[in-house]
């Protein structure tokens, strides 16, 4: 019988990786919860409000996208539209080629991971260097991020020290401060030599065209300090209606993501450098990326487009804590990834159709989501889709339900089954060739069969 890929992966996660992921997620989740409930009278009301605002945005993108385009152009930025990952990468390449640029410094952006930008540029002879410390380590290790906010949550400092030694960044030293100082020294020269700085955007105000980027390392500031051209990659769902909405979202984002009141750096960009300003990029390009988001919008799972990529659902998720991020085989892991990744796969939905099954539907993700996405409901809708589309990865390990539904709609058959189940008390379950039963009893016993006993008791006590 076919097995679930994520479950197989989990069986082989090294103990220290699992321990690192568990401790990192648990600590952040607990701090986040304490901070929100200590500092706000009713954080759940804030989550609901933020969810309503984002839902309003995604349902009115046809209004807000033209509005933000006009604003950005008026501010002096150039606006590009990319329907696919390929188009987005090509747009970045064209901007660089037009400037004769060969070196890029990158701040952390999930959408660049999604379109595999660094790989695309490197193949075409362009250096695209990650400047977020975690992403930098991922890049030198040719690895993949395993968390939305903490890309190297799966690594320990000894592994990182070995990587730095291998890359010639200094003799083995696993002191975190030394590691950070070495990365900083290396990156300083790169910032000065780069032609182009690339960022994402956590939010874009449709009212002003203002892009908001939050970091804790200041690397996005550095990426734009010496470069003359700023490229921002932005998913089309990143809008908020007005500048004043940012108060709500910034308050929720930092607390939900890293249990901070505010990230160390919160930057606002509304256009290229003005003649009156001494520094900053002279050119600013904003590339709005669709890459199947409009199909998600047309689906019955559009609520997932509210996501602000805080990672709170990963941190609280008991499945993510056991499986770790790479188990999801996707740029977006965890509960949000289990919804988003199969949807963004578009025509290749079947390749990710197992991910919506990788949840006990416990609902913890919905409870912490700063934009109140009903993730369990969306996982369920995608399970239904996987079944209707006969996706083999989705059905692996799930017992067939056809026979059960026949019995459960016939009271006579049901009562017979209640009686017949007694066989389990006499036959050792390992001899009963039902895969689900085998999977259960490998690590769990079954309680004694009591089929029909309650009904008999009910009937007898009614007798006068």
């Amino acid at each position, binding site marked *: 019988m076919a097995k*679930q890929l*994520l*479950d*197989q992966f*989990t*069986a082989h996660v090294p103990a220290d990786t699992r321990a690192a992921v568990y401790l990192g997620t648990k600590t952040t989740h607990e701090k986040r919860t304490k901070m929100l409930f200590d500092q706000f009278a009713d954080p759940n009301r804030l989550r609901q409000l933020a969810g309503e605002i984002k839902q309003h945005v995604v349902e009115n993108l046809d209004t807000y996208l033209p509005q933000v385009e006009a604003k950005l152009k008026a501010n002096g930025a150039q606006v590009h539209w990319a329907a696919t990952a390929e188009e987005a990468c090509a747009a970045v390449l064209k901007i660089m080629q037009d400037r004769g640029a060969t070196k890029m410094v990158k701040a952390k952006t999930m959408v660049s991971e999604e379109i595999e930008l660094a790989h695309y540029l490197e193949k075409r002879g362009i250096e695209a260097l990650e400047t977020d410390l975690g992403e930098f380590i991922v890049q030198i290790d040719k690895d993949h991020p395993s968390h939305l906010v903490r890309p190297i949550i799966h690594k320990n400092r000894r592994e990182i020290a070995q990587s730095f030694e291998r890359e010639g960044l200094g003799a083995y030293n696993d002191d975190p401060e030394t590691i950070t100082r070495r990365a900083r020294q290396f990156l300083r020269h790169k910032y000065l030599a780069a032609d182009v700085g690339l960022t994402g955007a956590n939010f874009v105000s449709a009212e002003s065209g203002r892009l908001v980027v939050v970091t804790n390392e200041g690397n996005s500031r550095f990426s734009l300090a010496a470069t003359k051209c700023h490229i921002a990659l932005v998913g089309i769902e990143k809008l908020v209606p007005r500048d004043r909405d940012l108060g709500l979202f910034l308050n929720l984002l930092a607390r939900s993501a890293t249990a901070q009141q505010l990230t160390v750096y919160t930057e606002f960009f509304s256009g290229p450098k003005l003649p009156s300003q001494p520094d900053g990029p002279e050119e600013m390009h904003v590339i709005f990326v669709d890459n199947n988001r409009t199909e998600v919008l047309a689906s*019955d799972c559009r609520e997932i487009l509210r996501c602000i990529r805080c990672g709170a659902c990963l941190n609280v998720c*008991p*499945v993510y804590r*056991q499986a770790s991020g790479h188990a999801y085989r996707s740029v977006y892991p965890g509960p949000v990834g289990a919804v988003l990744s199969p949807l963004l796969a578009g025509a290749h939905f079947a390749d990710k159709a197992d991910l*919506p*099954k*990788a*949840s*006990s*539907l*416990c*609902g*913890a993700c*919905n*409870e912490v989501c700063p934009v109140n996405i009903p993730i369990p*409901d969306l996982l*369920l*809708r995608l*399970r*239904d889709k*996987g*079944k209707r589309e006969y996706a083999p990865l989705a*059905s*692996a*390990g*799930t*017992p*067939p*339900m*056809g026979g*059960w*539904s026949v*019995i*459960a*709609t016939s*009271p006579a058959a*049901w009562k017979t089954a*209640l009686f017949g189940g007694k066989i389990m008390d006499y036959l050792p379950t390992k001899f009963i060739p039902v895969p*689900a039963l085998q*999977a*259960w009893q*490998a*690590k*769990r016993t*079954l*309680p004694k*069969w*009591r*089929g*029909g*006993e*309650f*009904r008999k008791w*009910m009937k007898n006590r009614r007798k006068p």
Partner: protein
Amino acid sequence: MDLSHRKLPGTDKRVQLMATCLCDAFYADAARATVEVLEYIGCRLEFPEGQTCCGQPAFNGGDWAASRKVVRHTVRTFAGELPVIIPSASCAAMVFHGALLAFEKEPDLPEVRQLANRTWELADFIVNALGVRTWPGRYDAKVAFHRSCHSRGTETGPAALTLLSSIAGTTVVPVGEAEQCCGFGGTFSVAFPNVSTSMGALKLEHVRAVQPDLLVSIDMSCMMHLGGLAAKEGKPIRTQHLAQVLRDSLKNGGLL
């Protein structure tokens, strides 16, 4: 979670009981205790004989077509206007939330909603419909309470704790990481056995750390998973449904 369901009982306190398939097959005593507890507080029970399952296994398993067949059977079986009481937060959530999702595009959604709107989880019903906030009798035990996940966003968890903490002799001890799932998740437990049992082992660790006399839940499915895991390890734990504790408290107090 929409809590607009929960139609209050009439003054004659007539209700229908949905015993759940798990009690039907494995946990007969939890169902018996539910009956005795409800009757003690004056309810008159109807037990529709044709009942089978709420339809959740297929719903969670992704086979919504099969699930809808079973939901339709349940809707027919529990026809009428009486409140339906379920000794399971999970099955109750299936009836008042899951079934509505599965029927979003179906012509008979109103019938499904009619049942949803009068469905109650047992503890929520006792406390919030009947206004019972203290439980008589006596039950001497240190109790760990497992708030099952399908009670999130409902009044069930607080209601169960209100009842448990009010019993003479009972001490409720808090369990670490209470918001974390036990790892059961229906068909998840067999499709993802490694993840499921790792989650369960962690939950057991938290439970054992506070050394309770017994683990109490409002869902026997979580207890089947945790209890089965503990037994297989050779270190069994005592598990009970809330209704069993309430019933035994009455018995110990000579009230039943």
